[in-house]
């Protein structure tokens, strides 16, 4: 049973969020300003906070900064702003994730689940660490021997081609692999590849499987006109204690 604090100045949104979160079996607390959120977080044993950015009295960014002075709990920002700069600002102030309004309830539930799992179960693991044959970045783990991939601890079923592509990308996080490179390194004359252009389709499928929102990927990013890469993530973004 996790305690989740929902903070938004719009009561209807708070209510809707409570309904969604209760349906998932979470215990919810509510706050309508940043100041109230600080009070509740200090009083109750909160495991995750959903926080709106634009609020009266104290906005979400300021509240996040104050919360981070004492708490390490995951904070997901709810924002009507969809600008890249706003996202960067939100993440830099200590938020773990963000969801733009209007949000998809399923996506929101998935992000909450992911953050809670990493907060409670996983340790800070990075790609370089781990035992032999195991590759990991953030919540994505790949076990080459077992041929298994899990995201935030949940196992994901991949096709062999998708697995091979992910293994290649996870091998050097941050490096951009072009379609042609991936095709040459992965196919190896494999019949699964009809053509070079199929790489992009595989990547898309892969993203749909490991990302909560494939259009805004956290791990497998598209570098337009250059190729694809696995985002190099620090331990902090990996979450956990």
């Amino acid at each position: 049973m996790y305690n989740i604090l929902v903070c938004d100045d719009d009561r209807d949104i708070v209510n809707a969020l409570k309904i969604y979160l209760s349906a998932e079996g979470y215990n919810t607390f509510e706050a309508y300003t940043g100041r109230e959120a600080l009070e509740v977080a200090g009083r109750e044993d909160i495991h995750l906070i959903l926080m709106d950015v634009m609020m009266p009295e104290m906005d979400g960014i300021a509240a996040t900064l104050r919360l981070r002075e004492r708490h390490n709990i995951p904070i997901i920002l709810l924002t009507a702003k969809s600008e890249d700069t706003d996202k960067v600002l939100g993440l830099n102030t200590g938020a773990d994730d963000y969801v733009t309004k209007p949000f998809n309830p399923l996506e929101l539930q998935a992000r909450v689940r992911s953050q809670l799992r990493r907060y409670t179960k996983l340790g800070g693991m990075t790609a370089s660490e781990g035992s032999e044959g195991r590759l990991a970045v953030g919540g994505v783990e790949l076990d080459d021997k077992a041929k298994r991939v899990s995201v935030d601890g949940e196992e994901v079923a991949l096709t062999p081609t998708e697995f091979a592509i992910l293994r290649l990308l996870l091998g050097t996080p941050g490096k951009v692999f072009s379609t042609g490179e991936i095709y040459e390194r992965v196919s190896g004359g494999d019949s699964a590849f009809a053509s070079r252009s199929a790489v992009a389709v595989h990547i898309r499928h892969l993203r749909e499987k490991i990302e909560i929102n494939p259009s805004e990927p956290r791990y497998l990013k598209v570098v337009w006109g250059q190729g694809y890469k696995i985002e190099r993530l620090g331990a902090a973004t990996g979450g956990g204690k």
Partner: protein
Amino acid sequence: MNIFRSMAYKATAFVLTAVLGSAGLVSGLLIFMAHGVGCYETDTGNYFDTKHFENTMNGHAYDALSNYDMLVRPKGEAYTPSAAPADPAEAETGLEGPLEPESADSADITPETESEGPLEPESADSADITSETGSEGQAETPPVSANGEKTATAAARQSQGDEMPNHVTPSAEEQRHAAETSNFAYEITLAGAPGDVLAFNYKPRSRENETEFKINNWSGWQDGEYKADGVAYVVRIWLDETLPAYDQFAMDKQGFDLFYPWRYRLILYAAGALLAALLLFIGLLVGAGRRPGREEAVLNPLDRTPLEVYLGLVALALFMLAELWDKGLDGIAGNMFDMRHLNDLGFSAAGAGALLCALVMVATAFCMGLSARLKEGKWWRRTLVFKVLNLLWRGLRLIPIMWKGVALLCALQLANLLIVAAITERHSVPAVFLYLIFNLALLMAVCYLGMGLAKLKDAGKKLAAGDLAFRTDGKWLKLDFLEHAENLNAIGQGMAAAVEQRMRGERMKTELITNVSHDLKTPITSIVNYVDLLGQEELTDKAREYVEVLERQARRLSKLTSDLVEASKASTGNMPLETHSVGIRELVEQALGEYGERLAERSLEAVAIMPEDEVYALADGRHLWRIMDNLLSNVCKYSMPGTRVYANVAKDGQFVKITVSNISNERLDVSPDELTERFVRGDAARSAEGSGLGLNIARSLTELQKGVFNITVDGDLFKASVSLPAA
């Protein structure tokens, strides 16, 4: 200061200034008179004691001599000795009578003056004079007494030089007139020959009351003699002290006798009156041209006349006053200043006062006029010279520049021709220099014109190139060039202002759209959420159908708001741009990969026609993806199922061109240009999903990356192309 502006002050002060000023001037004149005109102090109150008297004597002597000189010896005329004996003989007849007693007369003077009753107070002075003249006389007496020697000296002179003084004898009529108009009788003799009178004005009627003088104290005179051309003259003057003739001397003496007792008081009066007048005058100058309650200078009609006319009027007034004064002095205009009338303090004093009063008035009015003109500023604008020049200048400006140029060139060529003619005809060296200087000046003028033209051309070029901040420096430009430069600057300024205003308008619009869509997002979130929650409840089939509509439309609304922000930002360029080398082939492959599923869903086959090697363009990958995203999204929405979609990448000169073409499912009844307008969609019904902003955003983003976005419609074939600068 305000008091000086009032009409009351001006009127009063004007009259008072005139009265006090003229009174002061009259007093001033009288001071001169009271001091014997020369203003030399005399304690005795005796007019014959004054410096003026002495000057008068000298003046008479000088006049007599110059008169004689003029009459007798025209310049250059040789003196004929033969005529000499004849003339004196002739003169002797007239002179003989009075001449003879002369020698005795000089001895007579002293006792006579002493015996004179009315002149008794002066006796001491006259004795002084006589003693002086006596001494002079003594110097002369030896030749006079030795009569024989006189002729000898004359003969000696005659033999010495060929120029010999002539004798002049006035007619009886002339003598009578001279006696009536002057109290001074004179005669001119040669030094050492007192008996031989060369010239005289009249013979005194009697030697009574007369004092004889010999001129001594005057420049050019020495020991009572005046030397000219080696000849020494002696002038003797007799004054009848009863002053029978009313001449200037008599007038002066009368004034002196009358005002001598007031001589100090008059100074006080004159100074007081003039000082008061001066103060009032200054006040008038301050007030001139000012009206109560008016900030700017106000000119009366007279002051508005051209300065030249004004000066002419003043000069005319002064001239008339001077004429009146002269006439008054001459006694023709009713003896205005005749001192004989001073005793009854009537006409003469009043006349002089009135004239001076008028003079002061004219002068004061003149000064006030000038003051008002100066206060108005730009006084030269009210001159005829300025008006004429201004008219000419304006006329010159009206003439088209071409004719001005033609006229100038003709004039210059004519001048040049004249100079050349002067050189060839006269072999004149200055003309050669003139020619050189003239043509050098011409060269400089041409250079100047060229510079002006170059400057204007440069300015025009800058403006045409869109540099609206450029301003032509009109510092060295003149006339038409300057005007043109100013016009160019005005154009630049106007255009810059218009552009600035438009930019501001666009920015405000973007800001408004951003804010509005941001505010819309909160209610939309609630709608989306609760429609979703509603869909999870148990519903009838009909209700479920309605909820689905709500869901679809809510999603569309959400997309519309975010697209709106993007469209407005893209069209105003209000978004970050990071251009770098982008692999177009890679990008198109990636984009087609992203859309693989959706294309397949619509049974669309994607065909990519691309060069073997990667082509690179200078672009922002994310913006380019957004363009492809919009294009492919449109393709999925509007393509006829079961057809092929072509993605073509080709290098086209300096550009890399991406073309996406598909077969439209519906008839396209909108022109390609309209399709990229906001909210315009291929289907008029607007039933399908989409905001109608996709192509607009794509075009704006392409243009933001300095590319060209183009749409062609050929029947049902829809073709969108994006050309980006090759890297």
